[in-house]
């Protein structure tokens, strides 16, 4: 068989091809931005388009990001298909009002009467000594805005296919192109009409032991880290997110259901970044066996320009590899199992109230102690103490009485009962004494009734049981329970 020629392009060539193809296919498509005309863009994404389509459709704009975005909104509302370029993502925030405040809201705020099919392309990311204003990753700001789709291709094929999809999309799409991929990444790109659907992630490398989520240049660093680990017997799955908003939850959760270990990598700063959202998604779906790891830029205001400093803050294959080793080495805190079904609401569990109103005579100490012994006997977790070996439940109920500042509890019992009598407050939450698991406090008696509160140490006692425990206490007091074999250790 004759060998079929495989056409390879760089990312920037793929972007250029997508723009040219779409402009040729649809005369509503026009390109606008700084230096996009005769210069062909500072990264040459629009090279050749000015000669091919003319100044009417390849428009050099003033250095004014607000109006570049605002004019694109107006053009899109009129049914044109503007593809605006913001030279560096670092400059995009002057356009944010038009992207987040306008484009993202137009369809929703007009009940679907209007739409805003604009595309805004911008170059983001560091790793080339650009300093704080030519290296930023801005995705989290924009992925947070409902109504704005955000894509971040990593490969030449996706750079073409996602840009074509963005131009044909009826709503606004922000296309984040990692500037280091422009020339560093080369690969097969299908010729002709090629669309990569927005909202679909791709498994870039299959693996068993953990999943790395990445995009842009970090996808390639993550793949390199996975190769390093393969030789060490660690089998890592790498998922290329491709679309950051809306996230492809199915692909993300399907991979995690298999590996049950999550690592997310981005150049954007760590706090409130995409990684936080992925961790939240995984936690809500309950698909992780061990805590996740995030490999991201630390929370510093910018990417420094100095060679050593920049390399120190941006993730790379070595730091990703190290994070994965830690992740895979973490002991499973839970047995491997299929994702559990969400727990249904159980009407049999009483409300986890820690306060109950009880009928009590003024002279009630004996009855209260008796009832507490009865309730504590029925719920041994409330009558327990912490030991080095764990929580010890006691057969005998040793009530520690706290009768006020002049007669405080000694801490020698297994459960504390606080009662300051008629001088006490009507309602107060007791303090669980160190070492014990619960405490009960009776408020001042008014008209034969008092509020009884229970506090517990949640390391030992589940909140729902507090309601059950107090219900037992109340029943015992009001029905006059008697002590069988409890020991009372009075204050």
């Amino acid at each position, binding site marked *: 068989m004759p060998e079929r020629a495989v056409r390879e392009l760089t990312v920037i060539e793929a972007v250029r091809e997508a723009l040219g193809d779409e402009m040729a296919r649809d005369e509503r498509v*026009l390109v606008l931005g700084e230096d996009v005309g005769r210069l062909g863009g500072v990264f040459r994404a629009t090279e050749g388009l000015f000669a091919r389509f003319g100044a*009417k459709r390849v428009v050099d*704009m*003033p250095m*004014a990001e*607000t*109006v570049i*975005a*605002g*004019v*694109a*909104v*107006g*053009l*899109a*509302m*009129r*049914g*044109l298909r*503007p593809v605006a370029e913001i030279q560096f993502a670092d400059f995009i925030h002057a356009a944010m*009002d*038009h992207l987040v*405040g*306008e484009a993202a*809201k*137009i*369809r*929703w*705020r*007009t*009940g*679907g*009467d*209007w739409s805003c099919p604009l595309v805004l392309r911008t170059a983001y990311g560091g790793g080339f000594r650009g300093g704080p204003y030519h290296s930023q990753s801005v995705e989290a700001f924009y992925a947070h805005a*409902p*109504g*704005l*789709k955000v894509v971040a291709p990593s490969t030449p094929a996706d750079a073409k296919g996602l840009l074509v999809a963005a131009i044909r999309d009826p*709503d606004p799409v922000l296309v984040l192109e990692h500037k280091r991929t422009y020339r560093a990444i080369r690969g097969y790109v299908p010729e002709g009409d090629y669309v990569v659907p927005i909202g679909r992630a791709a498994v870039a490398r299959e693996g068993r032991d953990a999943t790395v989520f990445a995009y842009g240049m970090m996808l390639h660093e993550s793949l390199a880290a996975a190769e390093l680990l393969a030789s060490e017997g660690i089998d890592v799955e790498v998922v290329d997110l491709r679309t950051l*908003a*809306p996230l492809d939850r199915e692909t993300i959760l399907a991979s995690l259901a298999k590996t049950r270990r999550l690592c997310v990598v981005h150049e954007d700063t760590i706090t409130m970044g995409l990684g936080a959202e992925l961790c939240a998604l995984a936690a809500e779906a309950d698909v992780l066996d061990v805590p996740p790891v995030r490999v991201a830029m630390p929370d510093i205001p910018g990417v420094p320009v100095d060679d050593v400093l920049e390399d120190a803050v941006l993730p790379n294959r070595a730091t990703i590899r190290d994070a994965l080793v830690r992740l895979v080495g973490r002991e499973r805190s839970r047995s491997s199992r299929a994702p559990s079904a969400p727990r249904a609401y159980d009407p049999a569990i009483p409300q986890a109230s820690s306060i109950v109103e009880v009928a009590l005579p003024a002279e009630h100490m004996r009855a209260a102690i008796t009832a507490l012994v009865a309730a504590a006997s029925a719920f041994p977790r409330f009558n327990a103490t912490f030991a080095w070996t764990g929580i010890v439940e006691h057969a005998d109920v040793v009530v520690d009485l706290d009768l006020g500042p002049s007669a405080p509890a000694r801490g020698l019992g297994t459960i504390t009962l606080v009662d300051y009598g008629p001088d006490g407050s009507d309602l107060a939450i007791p303090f669980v004494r160190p070492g014990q698991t619960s405490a009960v406090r009776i408020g001042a008696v008014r008209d034969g009734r008092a509020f009884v509160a229970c506090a517990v140490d949640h390391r030992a006692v589940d909140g729902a049981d507090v309601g059950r425990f107090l219900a037992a206490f109340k029943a015992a007091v009001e029905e006059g329970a008697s002590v069988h074999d409890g020991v009372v250790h009075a204050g």
Partner: protein
Amino acid sequence: MTRAERERAYRALSLARALDDRMWRLARAGRAHFAVPCSGHEAIGAGYALAMRPGVDWVAPHYRDLAAMIVLGMAPRDVMLNFFSRPSDPNAHGRQPYSHFGSRALHVLSLQGPQPNHCSHGVGCAWGSKLLGDGSVTVIAFGDGGAQKGEVHESMNVAAIHRLPCVFVVHRNGWTQSVAREDQYATETLVARAAGYGMPGIAVDGMDVEAVHAAASEATERARAGGGPTLIDAACVRFLPNTSNDDDSRYRDRAEVDALRASGDPVLRARALVGAELADAVDAESAALADDAAAWAEAQPLGDPATVADHAYA
């Protein structure tokens, strides 16, 4: 203006005032959330809208351009649906408060909150007209407070560079809510700015509907003929507080405003265009239309929570 245009102008001014008056009182009575009065500004909207070709030309309006909406064909009931923020409001479907106008049918670009972001949208719209070659013109209206934003500078610059078919209309009432003209810009008027962009500027009495119409006609004809954009500086007086949430007694003298109102009310001045007899008849019709619209719109159902995410996609 032709005789028919004069009558249309008066009808729009009278109806805008009647609706404005109802909305102000209903908002103050707590029957609706928010009123944005146009009293004192009516001649600007009516004047430029009468220079537009309905259904052909486009407008990115000022939020005080109720009179323009009426000239372009917005029904009083639709105005009141917007005012009561009902989901059946064709402007904003219960999702934006009054006066966020918008109508694809009437060629009114959907208006947003942050002022005046619609400036660049209007420039984009005019650019679309040029690319599509449909000969339409876009009017872009905003306040003199909004005019101090970089958005306006960038938009006028781009419109002038590409000689786009648009007309910038500044409602110059001298107040940005509570901030007086002296604290907004250092010149008396804004018309000189036009020269800085290389476009003609026209200063006009914005409380004289004929004068506004004449200026807007000149500007729209120039735009249509490929002569590019024009800036119209239209002076007016804001008779009422900024919105129903504002208390203008904290920053300006009501007696001074009332005196300006007595001498320059654009609706009263326009009575001369049609004569007292017709003006009285039109005013009676306007009152009836406004009453009907308010009562009808208030009775329309509120939103269904199940629909709140409709038209949200990402």
